[in-house]
């Protein structure tokens, strides 16, 4: 479903992604882990078509995302959603208006139907009480969940999550993890999750890939990652200070 083929990306001369190749299968939950600044979010933005690689290709269902005209990108994005780290809610609209935004803008349904869809999605994310609140009046975790609700109303086939559980309490993290699993189980949704939260990664992942200094150094099932021989991966997943990763 998603293929990154020899993707290389530099920012101001600094190599962020170096010859990265990933193949994500349909219906899979693929988790990318790694230290801050190793290019996890950049990888996600490549898949979303928000960033183009310097070289290499990003293929979604066999269609090239990089370099594609906006019309093609929009078509590829029709069944794709991104849950941004900050929620990325439009700050002058209420939570309810934010969640309804894609449906209102694309005039998909009548007003009453949109209202029903919004209410349902806010309910499953425990946000019904926040419907009429402004983004500035809710917590970071609620913003993130509202961002997820805005993605869910579009019934996407592919959801990209940028740190979906960071800043959430353990119970709410579990709600999000279960939802990712539920979306996969019931609707066959493919998910790509970028996270530091190893507990969450083990819960949701079918496969975990670790990015280190712009390269994928290991990609395997959660069980194998847990028992890895790779000293870098082991140090990272166990959160150890001693090891090959430079913590300075």
């Amino acid at each position, binding site marked *: 479903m998603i293929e990154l083929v020899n993707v290389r990306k530099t920012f101001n001369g600094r190599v962020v992604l170096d010859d990265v190749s990933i193949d994500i299968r349909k219906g899979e939950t693929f988790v990318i882990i790694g230290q801050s600044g190793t290019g996890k979010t950049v990888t996600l*933005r490549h898949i*979303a078509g*928000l960033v183009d690689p310097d070289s290499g290709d990003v293929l979604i269902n066999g269609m090239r995302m990089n370099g594609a005209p906006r019309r093609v990108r*929009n078509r590829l*994005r*029709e069944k*794709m*959603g*991104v849950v*941004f*780290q*900050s929620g*990325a*809610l*439009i*700050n002058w609209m209420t939570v309810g208006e934010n969640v309804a*935004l*894609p449906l209102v*803008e*694309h005039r998909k349904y009548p007003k009453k139907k949109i209202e029903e869809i919004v209410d349902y999605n806010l309910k499953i994310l425990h946000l019904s009480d926040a419907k009429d609140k402004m983004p500035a009046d809710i917590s970071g975790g609620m913003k993130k969940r509202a*961002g997820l609700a*805005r993605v869910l109303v*579009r019934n996407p086939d592919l959801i990209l999550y940028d740190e979906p559980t960071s800043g959430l309490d353990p119970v709410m993290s579990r709600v999000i993890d279960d939802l990712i699993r539920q979306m996969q189980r019931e609707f066959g949704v493919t998910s790509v999750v970028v996270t530091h939260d190893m507990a969450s990664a083990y819960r949701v992942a079918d496969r975990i890939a670790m990015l280190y200094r712009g390269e994928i150094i290991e990609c395997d099932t959660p069980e194998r990652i847990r028992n890895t021989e790779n000293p870098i991966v082991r140090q990272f997943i166990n959160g150890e200070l001693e090891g090959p990763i430079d913590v300075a």
Partner: protein
Amino acid sequence: MSFNITSGEKFLGMLEQAGFIIVVFAETLFYSKNAFGKWREIFKQMYIAGVKSLLVCSIVSLFTGMILALQAGIEFATYQQEAMVGNLVIATMTREMGPFTAALVLTASVGSAMAAELGTMKVSEEIDALEMMAISPVKFLVMPRVIALSIMLPVVTVYVVVLGTFGGGVVANYQLLVSWDLYYEHVLESLQFKATYVGLLKAYVFGIIISCVSCAQGLKAQNGAIGVGQATRTSVIVSFLMILIVGYIITALFYGKAL
């Protein structure tokens, strides 16, 4: 060598900026067919551009008219022609100072706010979120602002001209001892149809320039708060320069043959 590279990079950067402003303008034209669907946002932006700038516009226009009248009055007084102040104030206000003053005030107040607002949305990933929902940021954010400002700038210009002329009258009456009747007789004598429509045309064009430049700068913002600040500052500078240059071009087009 490094000087040449830096200058070259700067020049390319300027060209890229100019190109992006043109792209934003072209897309705005394309999406203006959807303006009726965005009437609520357009009215909101018109309110911000018009009503919320009223106090600053009032003070600036009043004093512009007063300064014009006083400076001209001093000269005219040497020839006992103080009443001519009315002719000079209305001609200057309708042709140049009205649209120019309104444009400067709205660049500083509304244009900078547009750049800051869109810049903040850009760095907080809200623009990316719109792109991911296949919602064009130009259709959703820029088009209503451009339409609102291109409507409101001529309206504000009329207000500035009226108030500036009144300010000139106050000075004429109280400092140059020209009666109100005589002042307004001279004002009406020099109030030309051509000057009015050229002035309004300028205001309309300035409205498009300010909003397109400011929104384009906002959409290009990066690097957090510093980037937003930079986008805001650049939007004001570029708008000022373009207002001066385009203002001259319009004047030359309509009045150049009179030379």
